[in-house]
């Protein structure tokens, strides 16, 4: 199917901005509105735009299921592992304060939260993209 040139051009222009904005939303979560989840969804939206512009197959070739599996697993792993890391200095699960106290780095708590948000963002982005792939796939084989 031939796709509209305007849409293609506009999305080629917009997608990077959307993705940068999504990253901004993810890390900005600690300061204002936003966070991993919202950012992940916005990131996934950029893929939706690409799917609309270039077609599902094209996008899926660039960003395949292998990536989705890796990123979704990695995201939760970051979250859960940071939680587990907190046990090492003797804190409870997810007790970021214990790492901050052990390493003596100020504001580490906030950075850890950012790291966690990035993990959330990864998983949400990957899974949302995966869901859209699966929902939009109207037959035909997949890689």
């Amino acid at each position, binding site marked *: 199917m031939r796709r509209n040139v305007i849409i293609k051009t506009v999305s080629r222009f917009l997608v990077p901005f959307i993705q940068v904005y999504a990253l901004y939303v993810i890390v900005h*979560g600690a300061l204002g509105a936003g*966070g991993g989840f919202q950012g992940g969804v916005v990131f996934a939206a950029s893929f939706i735009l690409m799917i609309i512009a270039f077609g599902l197959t094209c996008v899926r070739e660039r960003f395949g299921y292998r990536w*989705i599996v890796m990123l979704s697993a990695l995201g939760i792993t970051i*979250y859960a592992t940071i939680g587990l890391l907190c046990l090492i200095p003797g804190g409870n699960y997810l007790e970021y304060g214990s790492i901050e106290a052990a390493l003596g780095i100020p504001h580490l708590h906030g950075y850890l*939260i950012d790291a966690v948000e990035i993990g959330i963002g990864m998983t949400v982005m990957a899974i949302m993209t995966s*869901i859209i792939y699966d929902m939009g796939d109207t037959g035909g084989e997949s890689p």
Partner: protein
Amino acid sequence: MKLKALLAVAFIGIILFWAAGDLPAFGDPEAPATRYTGKLYVDLALSDIGVENIVAAILASYRGFDTLGEVVVIFTAGISVALLLRRGGRL
């Protein structure tokens, strides 16, 4: 079916309206929720965690476990959709 549904909805509606009558007034700063945990979070979040967004502080730290659950929920949904819809592939 429609009638049954209406009856069920009416039943639920009655309970809801009845319950809403005893809810704290809208925007009441003296509501139990605001006065108790709400105030605690507002008072403590900055000193405890050091992030400006209280919601983010609660989301990621105080109730981080809920958020872990939330991420797992979305992960579950993704795998579920893959199980249901994906043809071929490894999943």
